[in-house]
């Protein structure tokens, strides 16, 4: 009991300090879900964090070109909680990048920061050569970043076709008076965007359902429609938040082909969050792994698969290693005379040991 209280205090202590972790020996921070305190071993681990925003991490074909997205030291606090900290990324012009990590790692939070649903507390985002500081969600979309949502957000009461037409809003060229009186200009533009909307619907072969209400579509079709809607805003970077969630293996395989096709046809970058490893490992050229709000690895699919940190994040530590660390931590804590405040090892790992 007393131990828990001490942990909480430690969390606040850290959150007050903000950046100043360099001189600290022990650092606590929270993940954004359960508010658990996590013990990060020592200063060394922070220093071991690579920036992951070098050109080295770009796929061959995108090297030499300015990256579409560059993120440096991105972080956000919610009250006293640090949801994401020191997130770095470089994404090539036509790269398909993946963002993976266990539940609650802060993946969607990163998407929300990229699209300015949340204003980041720290760090900067350089999109297409320009900093996005002070931009709103609307500005971000106009600059060329479009996204889908983890929990589908369609315009339910509009038809499938209208959902695409809304996304074509900025390329539809008539004013309110034309809209009110249905002038020839209105008719001409409506005819044009109807054809264009159909072009997008064709990508996923959904032209037959054009007149259905978006809310009445089956789940998979809704996901596809959301991707098409994002695509219709003519983005340079497409952010997909769990595009394969709720799809069966054959649908997922189809989706993989479609994402590749979209990339090749529109020559855009795609950055996706996904739990389905077959999709991530199958199409992502670069993968970032996130755990407890921090980047733990970046590399190609094969590099990620063999990375011990990633395996640890997903499967936990091996028993032997855990015991060893527990022992080390204990010794370290004893040497500083701070036994009471230092929990041994990761709390979840500790639970397993019991």
């Amino acid at each position, binding site marked *: 009991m007393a131990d828990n209280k001490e942990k909480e205090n430690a969390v606040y202590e850290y959150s007050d300090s903000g950046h100043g972790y360099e001189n600290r020996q022990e650092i606590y921070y929270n993940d954004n879900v359960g508010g658990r305190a996590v013990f990060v071993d020592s200063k060394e681990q922070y220093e071991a964090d690579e920036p992951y925003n070098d050109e080295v991490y770009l796929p061959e074909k995108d090297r030499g070109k300015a990256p579409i997205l560059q993120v440096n030291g991105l972080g956000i606090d919610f009250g006293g909680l640090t949801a994401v900290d020191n997130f770095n990324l470089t994404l090539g012009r036509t790269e398909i990048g993946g963002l993976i990590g266990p539940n609650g790692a802060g993946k969607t939070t990163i998407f929300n920061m990229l699209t300015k649903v949340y204003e980041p507390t720290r760090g900067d985002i350089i999109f297409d050569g320009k900093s996005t500081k002070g931009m*709103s969600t609307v500005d971000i979309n106009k600059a060329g970043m479009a996204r889908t949502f983890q929990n589908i*957000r*369609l315009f339910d009461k509009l038809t499938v*076709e*209208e959902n695409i037409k809304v996304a074509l809003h900025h390329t539809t060229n008539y004013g*309110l008076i034309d809209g009110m009186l*249905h002038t020839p200009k209105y008719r001409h*533009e409506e005819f044009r965007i109807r054809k264009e909307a159909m072009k997008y619907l064709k990508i996923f072969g959904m032209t037959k359902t054009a007149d259905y209400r978006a809310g009445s579509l089956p789940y998979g079709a809704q996901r596809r429609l959301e991707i098409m809607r994002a695509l219709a*805003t003519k983005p340079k970077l497409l952010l997909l938040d769990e595009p394969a969630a709720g799809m069966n293996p054959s649908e997922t395989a189809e989706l993989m082909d479609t994402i590749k096709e979209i990339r090749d046809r529109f020559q855009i970058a795609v950055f996706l969050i996904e739990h389905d490893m077959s999709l991530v490992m199958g199409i992502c050229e670069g993968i970032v792994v996130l755990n407890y709000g921090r980047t733990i690895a970046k590399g190609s699919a094969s590099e990620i698969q063999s990375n011990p940190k990633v395996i640890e994040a997903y499967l936990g530590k091996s028993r032997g290693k855990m015991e060893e660390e527990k022992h080390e931590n204990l010794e370290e804590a004893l040497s500083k005379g701070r036994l009471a405040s230092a929990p041994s090892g990761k709390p979840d790992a500790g639970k397993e040991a019991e």
Partner: protein
Amino acid sequence: MAERILKSVSVRALKGAKRGGQYRKEAMIAYGILIAGYILLQLGAATGIIGRNLQGQFVPICVYMALAISLNLVVGISGELSLGHAGFMAAGAFTGVVVTRVLEKSLSFAPARLIIALIAAALVAALAGFIIGIPILGLRGDYLAIVTLAFGEIIRNFMNVIYFGLNEKGHLVFSFNHAIDGIEDANRVITGPIGATGTTQIATFTGAMLLTAFTLFVVLNIKNSKQGRAIMAIRDNRIAGESIGLDVKKYKLMAFVVSAALAGMAGCMFGQNYSTLAPVKFNFNTSVLILVFVVLGGIGNIWGSMIAAALLTILPEALRQFSDYRMLTYAVVLIVVMICTYNPAIKARIGAVWSKINPFRKRSKDNSGSSGKKGKEAA
């Protein structure tokens, strides 16, 4: 020949129904109701079936229909609750009265005067809507409803303290918060709480019906345009709307201002129907009444709200025979209709009965399309 024309019309209608036809269907029903209503009421008045009392309600019926349609733009299409619609109606009504009185001498052709008054009323009401719209944009739901309520009352109370009159030269004199001295009663245009007096009644049933048709035209067109889609998209999902680059505030404001302008025009027509008109007519009750039309007709259902407006305006007149129990009967009817239209179980029951007696019902092919067909083949 006639058959051929009929055939081509029906073919065209069918094609319309196929091509994203929900709007065309809606428009056809709404215009149909308007035309049928106009013909029926005119016939009734000509043959004497409809009494004098009810004939006096013809213009208000059209005005309330127009108000219901315009409020539907905010409540149904934009998805925000507005309780201050009577305020915009008041702004339009009094603007119209002032404009027609000023023009009375110089422009003897009444319809032209009316049209100028309508345009002026629309502009003033739109300005009021714009001024009110800006501070309330950050609000949502109940909070927005309460602020619109307050603003509606502010407009009405403002009307209570303004005085307009015509001096000897026929020029307009304005005074705020105190009566104008030295003006004959006949030359007073608006007298504070007493309101507009001495207005020449130039509103006609046909004119009012045309105004309703115009309102319907504008609202239906907006609904099926880029702006309308943006407004509805924001209603359905604000965050997704922002994510595809829709300016939420701009489109909320647009819906609000257009709705206010249309309400102002309806108010102007209303004002031209009475020789005297007090600001108290445009109180909170009227705002609620318009909202009742919209809710009763089905939120977002434009032709439904038109029918509701017409019926609820006729009803108090038709219930005169119940004398003392008139308003009680009115309330009971309202409750029964609400239950019948919003209780899912009762609604389903009515729907089942309707599908049996519906003369236009589609056979075999329904909108479940190919999947339905396949199902049948399998069976």
